[in-house]
């Protein structure tokens, strides 16, 4: 039971959040599908939320948890508007990959 006896410190959560953030960032750069890119943004937001909650615990401060609330609201608003934009684009042209939108280039 050495595993169960080990203590989970804040650094464990911080490292995990860093890993999640990195995976999300790489996904955002690598994937071409706009919807999947959005999901990667959600991953990055979640990693940031996890960091906030970890520090709230570490500093014993409820402010960190209140901030996560605002992040959640911003994420929800972002998804609502972003998906609206994607649907509007889709109505005009078939295809939702970032490469299909190169016509936006100047």
């Amino acid at each position, binding site marked *: 039971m050495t595993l169960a006896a080990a203590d989970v410190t804040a650094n464990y959560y911080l490292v995990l959040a860093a890993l999640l953030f990195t995976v999300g960032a790489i996904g955002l750069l690598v994937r071409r599908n706009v919807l*999947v890119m959005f*999901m990667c943004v959600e991953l990055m937001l*979640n990693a940031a939320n996890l960091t906030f909650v970890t520090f709230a615990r570490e500093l014993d401060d409820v402010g960190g948890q209140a901030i996560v609330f605002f992040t959640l609201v911003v994420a929800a608003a972002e998804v609502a508007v972003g998906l609206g934009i994607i649907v509007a684009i889709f109505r005009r042209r078939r295809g939702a990959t970032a490469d299909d939108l190169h016509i936006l280039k100047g």
Partner: protein
Amino acid sequence: MEFAIFVIFAALAMAGALGVVLARNPVHCALSLVVTLISVAVFFLQQDAQLLAAVQVIVYAGAVVVLFLFVIMLLGVDREESLRESLPYQRPAAFVLGAITLAEVLFLAGRTWATGASSQRGSLDERVDGENLGNIERVARSLFTDFLWPFELTAALLVIAVVGGVVLARRSGQPVELLDEAEDEQAEEIEEEVREEAHEEEAVT
């Protein structure tokens, strides 16, 4: 026990995150995202954020992912996507940038840097301030006192998002059939232009 739970859900969270990035089918990506979100909710629970864990499951795993799936189904993009890259240097550059980001954040996380005054906005722990309050009361008290102004701004943000969503989803005043035809014509014209340009480019080279 805490460590075992951490290891199991950390593995699940990473597997879900990798699934989002690597799965070719957008529906699989969305379902992998649910795994990660619920794992993060478990981490919230482990760190005394019970309210946020509930909100995470309801808002993220519930509303946001369902919205994603809804759009995927609505647009019919649930076909597989080729992961072929059209920009030559994008993928290696992405990995290099990711490695740099990871190194930076790990460098920071590796030190003891949780400094500063604690419990500025109120404590999370009953044993510290002696008040018999649950997590929801503590977050609510902070939200409606210290963060009252941001909270009101949040309401404005949500209204703006709703209006934006309605404006984007709405077609302009024309009847639907006419607009559809007009849009089809427009799309054909654009495609033709693009094709002509491509021809011209080929001719030049």
